[in-house]
């Protein structure tokens, strides 16, 4: 049976598309944006997360580990990653959920059961399901099956993508998607590569092709001072969006928040937010104005 690797499911998600939604977060992303809010979404493998502040030193995990990979130190539990097989015994044994595994395989059927719990909220609010991540297109075969299953049940489908995929895959997904939330980060290809790890040529091309199909698209842009909030990038972005075929797009501007640091810590990663800041109110307003000049509606927030 086909499965998808999912790391989180949020109910009453109200900033990921119309109405009250359920947002399903896929694990794995071809981009590695420096500001990523969900660093656990980047790897397409199950990962171990550890919160030292939740650890009470009970050492149930140490005893439960069949590979003797864990030790209690003054800084909390330390895992020998060479010995660890990611079997999850430690997470199951932990009384406080200080150790958790991020990512679990879900079947289409299993996922539909969860989705169907919320249908009455979707019906009442004009909401539905949003597939996010990570990059949902990385799981496109599974995604297509889930989208079809939702379609059969009349559930509104939104796909939140960074657009870095084979065009054929994107178009296949677009056939069964009611709304795209398409992330644009940077127009300059060199800077794009520097900050996200990949080139933006494919992304821009894909957005044009997608717009051609007529499927509704909202553009989402993270606003990060020091990365992409400069007037030049914003102007280029606005030009690009304004030139897209079809109706004028709504642009959601998402001001950067340095909230990911705790999550990086949990993954045992270093996080260096150097050079990244939240643009202040007046800068946000200047950016909105640039989009409006091009006849685009820009909204701060999702």
């Amino acid at each position: 049976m086909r499965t998808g690797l999912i790391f989180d499911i949020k109910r009453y998600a109200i900033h990921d598309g119309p109405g009250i939604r359920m947002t399903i977060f896929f694990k794995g992303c071809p981009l590695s944006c420096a500001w990523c809010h969900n660093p656990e979404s980047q790897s397409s493998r199950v990962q171990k997360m550890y919160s030292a502040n939740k650890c009470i030193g009970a050492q149930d995990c140490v005893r439960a580990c069949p590979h003797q990979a864990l030790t209690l130190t003054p800084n909390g539990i330390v895992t020998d990653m060479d010995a660890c097989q990611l079997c999850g015994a430690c997470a199951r044994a932990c009384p406080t959920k200080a150790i958790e595994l991020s990512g679990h395989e879900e079947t289409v059927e299993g996922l539909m059961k969860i989705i169907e719990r919320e249908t009455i909220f979707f019906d009442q609010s004009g909401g539905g399901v949003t597939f996010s991540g990570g990059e949902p297109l990385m799981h496109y075969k599974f995604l297509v099956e889930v989208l079809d299953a939702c379609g059969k049940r009349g559930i509104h489908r939104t796909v939140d993508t960074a657009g870095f995929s084979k065009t054929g895959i994107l178009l296949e997904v677009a056939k069964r998607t009611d709304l795209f939330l398409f992330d644009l980060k940077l127009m300059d290809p060199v800077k794009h590569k520097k900050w996200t790890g990949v080139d933006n040529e494919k992304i821009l091309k894909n957005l044009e092709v997608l717009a051609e199909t007529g499927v509704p698209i909202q553009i989402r842009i993270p606003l990060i001072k020091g990365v992409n909030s400069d007037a030049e990038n914003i102007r280029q972005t606005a030009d690009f969006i304004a030139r897209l075929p079809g109706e004028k797009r709504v642009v959601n501007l998402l001001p950067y928040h340095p909230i990911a640091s705790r999550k990086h810590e949990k993954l045992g990663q270093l996080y260096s937010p150097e050079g990244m800041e939240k643009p202040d109110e007046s800068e946000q307003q200047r950016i909105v104005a640039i989009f409006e000049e091009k006849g685009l509606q820009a909204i701060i927030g999702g």
Partner: protein
Amino acid sequence: METPLTTEHKPPARAGGTEGNFYPLRKNGIGPGMNLRIQRLRKLSVETEPSLSIERALIETEFYKENLGKYSVPEMRARTFLEICKNKTIYIGADELIVGERGPTPKAVPTFPELTCHSVEDFHVLRSREQQRYAICQEDIDTYAREVIPFWKGRTQRERIFQHVPSAWKAAYEAGLFTEFMEQRAPGHTALDGKIYQKGLLDFKQEIADHLARLDYLNDPEATDKADQLKAMVLSCDAAILFAERHADLAEKMAEEEKNPDRVQELRKIATVCRWVPAHAPRTFWEAIQMYWFVHLGTITELNGWDAMNPGHFDQHLAPFFEKEMAEGALTRDEAKELLSCFWIKVNNHPAPPKVGITARESGTYNDFTNINIGGITADGADGVSGVSYLLLEVAEELHILQPGNSVHISSKTPNRFLHTACKVIRQGHGFPSVFNPDIYVLELLRQGKTLQDAREGGCSGCIEVGAFGKEAFLLTGYLNVPKILEVTLHNGIDPLTGKVAGIATGDPCGFQTFEALYSAFRKQLNFVIDQKIQVSNYIDKMFAKYAPAPFLSVVIDDCIAKGRDYYDEGPRYNTSYIQCTGLGTITDSLAALKKHVFEEKTCSMEVLLDALAHNFEGKESLRQRIRNNTPFFGNDDAYADDIAKRIYEDLLDAIDGKPNIKTGGKYHLNMLSTTCHVYFGKVTGATPNGRLAGKSISDGTSPSHGADTHGPSAVLKSLTKIDQVRSGGTLLNQRFLPSLLQRDPDISKLASLIRTYFTLGGHHIQFNVVDTATLRAAQACPEDYKDLMVRMAGYSDYFNDMNEDLQQEIIDRTENESF
């Protein structure tokens, strides 16, 4: 045309510590926002310290000393009421348009020694305690000690009640298994229908006279009792009319001495209004409001019934007057709003009468629970929203004061515009309005045996309890501490906190081999405790019927006149007794923990768990964490826990619902209200199997335990609607939202959809606190800067600073729904 409420949300544009008025004042001084008159009245009301007035007690005591034994009990009560109306100080304050105070001045609360007589020590506690203080001077305390206390010794209702309670009841009561409402205050919990806007008290008097004339002394053995009651009702009408006339006299006198010609006009108008109502049916919007206010004052002067008094569907009652005068050009929207604001402040001038002893701990608030129902449906099933509904929301938002409580009633017929407007008021974060579902409570009332029309005219009084307005005595009898019943079960009938017997022996818990064996012991204990409670409630009911009738209240509640019987004595068309069961979340989670860890997975034996509970989990943090993190808890749309909640709910119904009370046709019904009692119950309950530590608050109403719901509000609503709420007389759901979740207008419509979905699924009530933890902590640290921060308790709003630390902590501990 209504002026729309603010659509853009800005956090209240007030510096910390200032009050009121979100909107800049227009040059002409009138709206939007409070005009200067309303600002002054509000300021006086907010800043006046609540005080105790001994005036009522002195008038009453003197009258009793002279007249004891001369009259029948109902007549004695009516004559006492008349005496008070004849002699009490009449107050008409500067700027006032709606007049009348229960005490001699705003926020002065009388005492009711005939029910429970405060001791000198009580007064000292009341005037010096940290929260909910009531000022009283030493001279008044001395007078009270000399004139009032000696006379009432041995004659109070409270003493009569406590003389007779059985020891098993006392043991359960002292263990904190339940509380008793009527030991200190009279039964009330009522709301009015529309009849006082159609008929004046002179019309009621005529009706009473007709019934008196028709009494059949030949065949009706109760004819004499009925005559006594009906004569008392006539006297009480005279008393209320006299009270109004005295206001008219004073207003005329003040007009003669007044220099400001505008105020002279107003005072003359007040005099005209007070000469007309309550004697006659009101003709104008102003008279209609004053009519209600005199009736309200009459009922809360006669006795101190619970929940003060409620106007019921106030907007529906006022709408015909409003629309007629607006069409004629006799009234402007601003004038209507000003009058409503004056009324609103009048209600705020009346803090709850202070209690004594153990129940002083259970409800720490000045709020006396008048609840204005806004919107809803009409008696013929149509949408009840009118221009007055929007006005009331505006008044509530702009004044944002403690009283009156207010609620919006959202049926499937209610327009979205009204719901959205209400959501915008909710977003301001004052904890009101609360939101009710008439489509469900009409079913609740029908199930209890009301006619369709009477059910539709019903709604909620006080907090969340429902009844047929103007036709029913729906009495809250007290709270039931359901988690404590489990605690006593786990100790074979003993209260582990005191070592005393609190219930019955239901078996050694370590001998239970299965969850079913434990559950059936719990159920046995539950039935025993509820029967104790009911026995005494029945007895107290009879005490009130016999010794403390309320003839004035009886005039305005159908069918007291037709039956010739008192409100407390089967007079109303419907007579319901509610028992309010508290802690559904805590008990569900505790049973889920026992089921899973002790009986199914056997990872923890009963002995080990009981030992951990006895030591408040000290040295057992790992076990406590395992329970808290690895047990399915109520509020997550998880069948494991939700099925247990359903089962408990069914068994509560089974133990309570449909049991007869002492009134013919009257029955007990289930209610799931907690007010602040979950905090008191937490204090008297040791650590519970769900990992809750000793002394911590138990869960409120039907809300999940603090922090137990981790899947967002929609999952909570799903769990809540698995219990068949129609068979209750009210459930209560608290939700705490971060302000960021309601920042923009699209968020408002999503909140509205959330409410609509809950109601479609069969939810009775939901209320929101829109405030973040940082703000609450800041308010704890610097109370002066957050004087007007209001939060939602269980069933009403209160000033955060007026709450004791336990209550504040309880609010902070509630699960905070954040933006995703």
